[in-house]
């Protein structure tokens, strides 16, 4: 059996969880797939069946209302043992990255983190995962009977087939926790994390100042995307949060579309964006290394091109 840890947000299963469920279904063949939900208010979990779950498992308790690294790890490890799962998959979300290593350590299982390809070979999971922020890809084999992987958001395709699954409940671990989330200071409403965004419009030193990021925000908003920045832009003191930084020293991203504006293309930045399906570069320096990577290159002044692009996208959508 493949067990998939899934997350709920605002009454819906998060997209990265649906991606990993879809992949579990492909890997499992005729073997069963179970979706595991841990929390207090578990509404909307039945939809997991439409993405391949034969069974939907709930571990529900008021003690699980807020996220705790160790309590969630205990609950997930309990479910692995109770169901006799051989493979555990989680999306490499902030929670998946936080709790999966604890589950692996607790159960003595191999863990492949942030993988981009999965297959079954000789009865065991085999994973491909980027290392050195995407400068190299490693194929990873497991030596343990239980194999755990976290999947990179935005990489695995969604696959839905309408069907029903059975819901079952497992007991919650006792409520003692070692650390817990007391509060979340939310980003602006509806703003996705860079690692989950489908479209990223990023600015570099060529933006010249903080105010000009407004141009990128307008374009991103028109395309339903989010704004990112190079290290040079973050280091320039323009009040851009570190969490917006893309590259080896920031976030490694894999959007469908990455638009690099005024970014020269330093090695450590490029390493973080090679997972993008399409890369657009806008830069006035025709020799900028970013153009070697771009699918579509625009040599020009971003202060003229970006507003025209926003206009053209708006017009195309009408």
């Amino acid at each position, binding site marked *: 059996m493949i067990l998939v840890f899934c997350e709920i947000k605002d009454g819906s299963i998060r997209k990265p969880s649906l991606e990993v469920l879809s992949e579990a279904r492909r890997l499992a063949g005729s073997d069963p797939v179970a979706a595991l939900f841990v929390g207090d208010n578990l509404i909307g979990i039945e939809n997991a069946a439409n993405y391949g779950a034969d069974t939907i498992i709930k571990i529900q308790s008021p003690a699980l209302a807020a996220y705790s*690294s160790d309590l969630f790890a205990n609950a997930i490890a309990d479910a692995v043992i109770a169901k006799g799962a051989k493979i555990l998959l989680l999306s490499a979300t902030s929670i998946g990255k936080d709790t999966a290593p604890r589950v692996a350590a607790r159960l003595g299982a191999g863990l*492949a983190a942030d993988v981009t390809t999965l297959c079954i070979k000789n009865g065991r999971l085999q994973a491909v995962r980027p290392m050195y922020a995407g400068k190299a890809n490693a194929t990873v084999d497991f030596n343990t009977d239980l194999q755990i992987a976290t999947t990179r958001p935005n990489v695995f395709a969604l696959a839905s087939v309408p069907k029903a699954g059975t819901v079952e409940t497992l007991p919650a671990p006792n409520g003692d926790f*070692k650390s817990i989330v007391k509060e979340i200071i939310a*980003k602006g409403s509806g703003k996705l994390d860079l690692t989950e965004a489908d479209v990223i419009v990023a600015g570099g030193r060529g933006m010249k100042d903080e105010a000009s990021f407004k141009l990128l925000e307008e374009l991103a908003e028109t395309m339903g995307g989010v704004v990112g920045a190079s290290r040079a832009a973050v280091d320039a003191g323009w009040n851009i949060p*570190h969490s917006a930084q893309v590259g080896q020293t920031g976030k490694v991203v894999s959007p469908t579309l990455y638009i690099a504006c005024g970014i020269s293309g330093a090695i450590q930045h490029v390493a973080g964006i090679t997972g993008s399906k*399409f890369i657009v570069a806008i830069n006035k320096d025709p020799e900028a290394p970013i153009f070697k*990577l*771009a699918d579509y*290159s625009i040599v*020009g002044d971003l202060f003229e091109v970006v507003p025209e692009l926003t206009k053209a996208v708006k017009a195309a959508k009408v």
Partner: protein
Amino acid sequence: MKILVALKQVPDTESKIKIADSGCAIDQADLKWITSPNDEYALEEALRLKETRSAEVTAISIGGEKAKDVLRNALALGADSAVLLKTDAVDDPLLIARALAAFADGKNFDILFFGHKCYGNDNGSVGAMTAELLKLPQAHVVTKLEISDTAFRAEREGDAGIEIMEGSLPTVITAQRGLNEPRYANLKGIMAAKKKPIEEVDCALADATIKITTLALPAPRAEGKRLDGDPVAQAASLVALLHNEAKVI
């Protein structure tokens, strides 16, 4: 207060990566090696606690002779002692966590600091694994930290925003960029570090849970298209391509 800081030596982030003849590791020739940048934030936070709370800071690394460089650097910056767990190259984060947990067990460290992810294996797992093995709390990917005698309050990067994570000491904290601005070593520190010993502990790692069987460079991207004309024409060509080819509009 006793603090352990785990440091990893990695290739400089500006390095080009080449694959070794074995086909399952990087070619280490001609690489410049640095302390993994996230580990520098971990070390800096420990050194600040040394100054404000008289903490005693031990730096630890795992690897071969070369890894002594990051320990020497930590001593130069102000770490009180340094330990090298001597072993061959290891890819498995759980083996590293087991070695670190075995070392730390029973030594009464109040905080174990890590970088949240090393810039090489990119596992981002060793800190949380070590926490689980030692049955400690954790705060992972921390950008702000407050410590009292018995507890911590940490801001960590969550997908929905900043999460305030609370727990008691002893604990594992993994550092993220933004936590602090690391200091540079001064000449006095560098000279003093030369006289401080690095304790070496032989460390046999058995039973790897995962194995890298192949390491390969990513396939080169296909040659791109250059869009000419004035900004209006360039924007129009791009929108057409994004609609027809990339199908994102």
